[in-house]
């Protein structure tokens, strides 16, 4: 049987990917951030999961304004890095896992989640940057990936509570998958940030720290945060944090924190990273 071996929460900041792609990680601006990624990469090397489910959002790359899909699982054998205006990001193509993806979709639909299926979907920085953060710059990604795209751009985004329940249903589906696989799950995006409007540049370290704390301490508080609280306290784009709740839902009720790293600023954003494992 497949099993979830851990969860990672990780910001997916485009300029973090660009800093790696352009060899700038040792510059003074970036070094403190990247130094903090090292222990996470060490964990990743040891954990070495067969599959990573990456919960992320598309930023008007694969999807456009014509159709806003709510929850979408990629079931293709391969996904290409999206062209976000500078050509496709020069990272390896992402290998999918159609059998597991189809199993997840069936199981989730039977559990009354209304999941869209993507068979062709370019994956943007929302997905590739966390892979870069956690794996560095390998020639091939050492895992297969199931992309799970969440609408966080168009209001109403799914409730945090719904995302958490989706995580629980994913856990059940993974547990039931009839292959001997190790699976990690990444919740990406955030943490607090606002890209738009006169309030652009908002960062709320207190909110972010409390969020990190309560992933292991008080999940019920997090799942009750509503749209307005996210937008007001964590910035209009801080609502991306609901995707971390999918990751959290896929873990046991009791987890412990293996590692965290928090740094301001990375471009316009507060950058956070956390690794959680189930209590034994």
């Amino acid at each position, binding site marked *: 049987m497949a099993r979830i071996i851990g969860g990672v929460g990780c910001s997916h900041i485009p300029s973090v990917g660009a800093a790696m792609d352009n060899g700038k990680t040792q510059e003074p601006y970036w070094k403190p951030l990247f130094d903090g990624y090292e222990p996470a990469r060490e964990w990743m090397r040891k954990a070495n999961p067969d599959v990573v489910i990456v919960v992320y959002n598309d930023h008007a790359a694969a999807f*456009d304004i014509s159709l806003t899909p709510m929850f979408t699982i990629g079931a293709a054998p391969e996904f290409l890095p999206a062209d*976000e205006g500078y050509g496709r990001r020069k990272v390896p193509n992402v290998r999918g896992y159609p059998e597991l993806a189809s199993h997840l979709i069936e199981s989730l639909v039977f559990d009354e989640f209304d999941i869209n299926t993507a068979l062709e979907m370019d994956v943007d920085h929302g997905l590739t940057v966390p892979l870069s953060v956690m794996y560095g710059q390998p020639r091939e990604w050492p895992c297969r990936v199931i992309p799970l795209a969440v609408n966080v*751009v168009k209001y109403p985004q799914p409730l945090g509570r719904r995302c958490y329940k989706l995580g629980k249903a994913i856990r059940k589906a993974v547990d039931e998958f009839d292959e001997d696989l190790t699976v990690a799950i990444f919740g990406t995006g955030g943490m607090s940030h606002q*890209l*738009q*409007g*006169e309030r652009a*540049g908002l960062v709320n370290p207190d909110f972010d720290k409390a969020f990190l704390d309560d992933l292991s301490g008080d999940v019920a508080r997090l799942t009750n945060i509503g749209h307005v609280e996210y*937008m007001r306290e964590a910035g209009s784009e801080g609502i991306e944090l609901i995707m971390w709740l999918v990751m959290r839902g896929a873990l046991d009720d009791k987890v412990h924190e293996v590692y965290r790293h928090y740094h301001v600023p990375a471009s316009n954003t507060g950058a956070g990273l956390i690794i959680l494992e189930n209590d034994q």
Partner: protein
Amino acid sequence: MGKLESEYEDIPGTYVFDGKRCIEGFQLNKFCKSLDLEANRAAFRDDPSGYLDKFPMTPEQRKAIEDRDWLGMLQLGGNVYYTFKLAAFDGITMQHIGGAMSGITVDDFRQMMLAGGRSVEGNRSKSEWK
């Protein structure tokens, strides 16, 4: 009026991309999205006005684009992930438009981010911005 609209509309300097804005900004965002393709970027570069004619926007939206009025675009239904495509076309960064939208220079914006970003204190409600 949406269930939460009055609440989120109270957040200052923030344009929640709800159904209303999504519909209002449809053509504006569609124009921005079209810049994903190099062929379209070339067409827009060669003949900005002719290219914009393909997207039936309001005169205000069109003017906001022509003026690179980044805040105005949002106020007229633009979404920042879309308008950023126009910024990328212009070769400027998210910090540039962050500064432009909040009425400061890009250097001041960068400085603010280095100092920890914009605080949420005093920025939660429109009533604090009077």
